[in-house]
């Protein structure tokens, strides 16, 4: 049988920080979606019109 390939095993601290980064990215993307939605409501059909 072939040897098991070496894998990186994350420590608990690394897992915790990765989860925190993932949540932060999700929140930032969610905030962007909400921002684009509100700006579209505010500007109406001419959402890309410039001042």
């Amino acid at each position: 049988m072939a040897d098991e390939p070496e894998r990186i095993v994350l420590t608990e601290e690394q897992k915790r920080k990765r989860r925190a980064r993932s949540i932060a990215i999700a929140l930032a993307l969610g905030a962007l979606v909400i921002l684009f939605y509100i700006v579209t409501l505010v500007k109406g059909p001419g959402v890309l019109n410039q001042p």
Partner: protein
Amino acid sequence: MTDISAVDRHPQPGPLAAIHLVSEAGVGDYLALMKPRVMSLVVFTALVGLVVAPAHIHPVIGFTALLCIAVGAGAAGALNMWFDADIDALMARTSRRPIPSGRVAPGEALAFGMTLATGSVVVLGLLVSWLAAALLAFTIFFYIVVYTMWLKRVTPQNIVIGGAAGAFPPVIGWAAATGSIGIEPILLFLLVFFWTPPHFWALSLNRTQDYARARIPMLPVVAGAAETRRQILLYSLSLLPVGAAPWLLGYADAIYGATALMAGGVMVVLAWRLWVEGSGQRAARLAKRLFGFSILYLFVLFAVILIEGVLAGLLGHAAA
């Protein structure tokens, strides 16, 4: 005048050379990459440019503009830390930043900075104004390429010319509201531009050893403390009329004029005392005091302009 040549990038192996297979960066480390204190100044001056502009901008669009400017400033901070990681590691003030301390890999900071820079410019252009977006893109380019990559390591005039990057936000705010550039935002630009040298040199007077160790040709390292104190006084004297210019040219009220003259006068007095004091503990304390007051100076002047702008807007609204 420039005795110190550009230093080698990553001259010796150390924490920076470590291979980061797994990121150990926390959310706070990414926030630190964005230099939140610099961001707050950028947002505040951009807000002033936005509010005093003679055009109505919907609060949501104004908020979007400020958000993009803040994120663009954060991107510039991250890219600055990515490029300067080697010299940051050599200075006490910056050695605990996320990259030199090994918490964020240089590549992660580069990707983070580039993503934020691109995103902030594109969103500002699509939703607010392409002129403002172009100015934001130029500001990030100027701060990273002209200041960080070029001037900072080769000339003691680095923060004089590089200071233009920090002076652009009120112009971007104005452009976001009006789609154009006027005399008023240029006066605000000049105010920040002339304020930057005495502000940074007052700080660098007490960090000379740090800058010398990192081989950064700051003025006190290259020309000495006496010449730096003389330059601080000259720039503080120049700042006095530049600060009062919005009132002298009729763009601000007498309250602003009185504030600018008084605050500018205090700057000159502090710079004068620093110049005549020479070296020693007392001079170090004076430099620290001048640095602290310079922050207050800029905040107060922009705050008065902001309040005058808000009041003028409210009175105009009531009259209409």
